[in-house]
């Protein structure tokens, strides 16, 4: 009975029509599924900051990202407005001449302390998420990741020769400048404003937790971290701790 329902040609025609129908319907279906409206109701307190970070990244170039829970380590590490942070603790800032300055953030600076720097050569191509520079001492080096793609057009020799220059990590402590090749796409992957501050607070909490794991977030009162936290916490294994935070 059923097997005589369609001729081979009729069946093939039905198959093609079904396939074409599927493809035509799939486009609006896909657009419908992807076109989610902003949703506020499901953002719960414990996840508010992380959800806000995601929303802010999507809405680049960075609108206000809602309420963030107060953090016991808030204020330990600074990030000025207009600086975009990479999760590997490097930063990028658009300059007036179209170039992008790159450096290490306040957290990285305080984690490692005064350190010898290995900077890329002029003309080197760097890629977002790939190692671009190294920090360390005579024995150990820890690579750090480039926050964006491009070619290196300037290197801060002063910072290389005088590590104390990076005491101002976002100022005269810039490390090199890049002529960007995929700026818009790269910036979408970086954190700016409230998400960037929250990111540094999270990093601070991780460090605080390491200082007193049993006490969790109950911290010492007052004060800010010393320079060279990694050596203070992990001794000779400071580079392992740094690698963990720098995603190296």
């Amino acid at each position, binding site marked *: 009975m*059923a097997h005589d329902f369609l001729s081979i040609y009729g069946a093939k025609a039905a198959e093609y029509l079904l396939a074409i129908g599927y493809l035509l319907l*799939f486009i609006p*279906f*896909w657009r419908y599924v992807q076109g*989610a*409206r902003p949703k506020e109701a499901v953002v719960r307190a414990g996840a508010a900051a992380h959800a806000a970070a995601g929303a802010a990244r999507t809405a680049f170039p960075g609108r206000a990202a809602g309420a963030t829970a107060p953090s016991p380590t808030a204020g330990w590490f600074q990030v000025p407005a207009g600086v975009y942070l990479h999760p590997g603790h490097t930063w990028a800032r658009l300059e007036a001449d179209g170039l992008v300055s790159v450096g290490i953030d306040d957290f990285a600076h305080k984690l490692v302390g005064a350190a010898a720097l290995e900077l890329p050569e002029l003309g080197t191509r760097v890629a977002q998420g790939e190692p671009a520079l190294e920090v360390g001492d005579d024995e150990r080096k820890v690579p750090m990741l480039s926050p964006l793609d491009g070619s290196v057009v300037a290197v801060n020799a002063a910072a290389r020769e005088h590590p104390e220059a990076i005491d101002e990590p976002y100022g005269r402590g810039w490390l090199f400048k890049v002529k960007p090749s995929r700026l818009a796409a790269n910036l979408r992957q970086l954190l700016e404003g409230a998400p960037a501050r929250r990111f540094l607070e999270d990093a601070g909490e991780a460090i605080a*937790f*390491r200082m007193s*794991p049993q006490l969790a977030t109950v911290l010492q009162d007052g004060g800010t971290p010393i320079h060279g936290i990694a050596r203070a916490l992990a001794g000779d294994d400071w580079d392992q701790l740094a690698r963990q935070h720098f995603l190296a």
Partner: protein
Amino acid sequence: MASARMQVAAAPQGFGGFVKEKVLLGMSVKDYVRSCCTPVNAVAAVILAVGLPLLAYRFYAGLGATTNLSQTAPWGLWIGFDMMTGIVLAAGGFTIGASVQIFGLKEYHAIERPAILTAFLGYVMAVIGLIADLGRPWNMAFFPFNYGTASALFEVAWCVLCYTSVLFLEFTLPFFEWAGWARAAAFMKKLLIALTVLSVMFSTMHQSALGSLFLLAPTKLHPLWYTPFIFIFFFISAIVAGISMVVVESSISHRVFHRQLEGQPVDADKLILGLGKAGAVVMFAYFFLKLQGVVDGHAWGYLATGYGALFLVEVLGFILLPSLLFAYGARNGKVKLVQFAGLLGVLGIVLNRLNVSVVAFNWQLPSAQRYVPHWMEIWVSVTLVTIGVLAFRWIVNRMPILREDPRFPGAH
């Protein structure tokens, strides 16, 4: 290493301390036993008290005494439900593992370990069901040495063996963290991406190989379900099942184990909505594939029969409907709707596997010769599911599955 020093400092002292802290959750034996006296545990105890002796009886007295299987119906509930359904619902392990480790969707990391644990337990229970279903289970020890490379069962057996081993190795990571073995945990963490690649490979091979089994019996399976492409259908429906099962399992876990999740920076609702999007798209494609299978098999005429009604219930009610609900729920942020769609998806896959391997199998036989499961088969199947759920609960309450172990920050 500083972290190792901290682990030693934080670890409970001595074996007795370890058992009390890690196994008895800080309680004395008396308090622990008392804490286990709950209505849910009482029901589970009744199921196990009957089911485990039944399982032992099956190995003592054989299949004939405990099942309604026969030469015409050699596959019953233990294959259709425990094996076919258990395996497909365990597909969340490779689906989420691949999403996180290979496709870089790191935000789903929070549900990777529960998915892998569900998969591991699902496979272990499926293997027990399979061993119970084998007429001569002791021959299983020899299958690796019988090079039946033309046999679909040979492939299934190897893939189940390999993938269960991979899942076991993936599961050792939270186990080592729980035991405080930092070096072993660090080693397994390095292996995780390789294991994920293997898990995708083995799952792809053997989810589809389970479908390939039906290529051996094209006339026994009803034309609405049989298609020469059934192995592709099995694989795609495994992805559907994996996503749906993770939605359901996450929803239940977040309700039952909510204390473990307090204060964690994970927006579970956001993850569920994301899974809803993926589920909508995959189910939409699967729906059209099912229709294509009917057209390709010239089986339209059967839609007007009783089997056709069952097929339409499966395809419209448990594939198209959850796909649309997933889409609407994910777009409009309706988490409960997505969870409901996930439940429909899971039920739909259970229905599909039971239809393929039991209901629509041997469909041409007179009803007197059709297979109806023995009550002992049903009880043993329920027992295996209960063991899986209890094992999941036991492990989640102790090991870093839903939460991070404080001694391994950033590992979860």
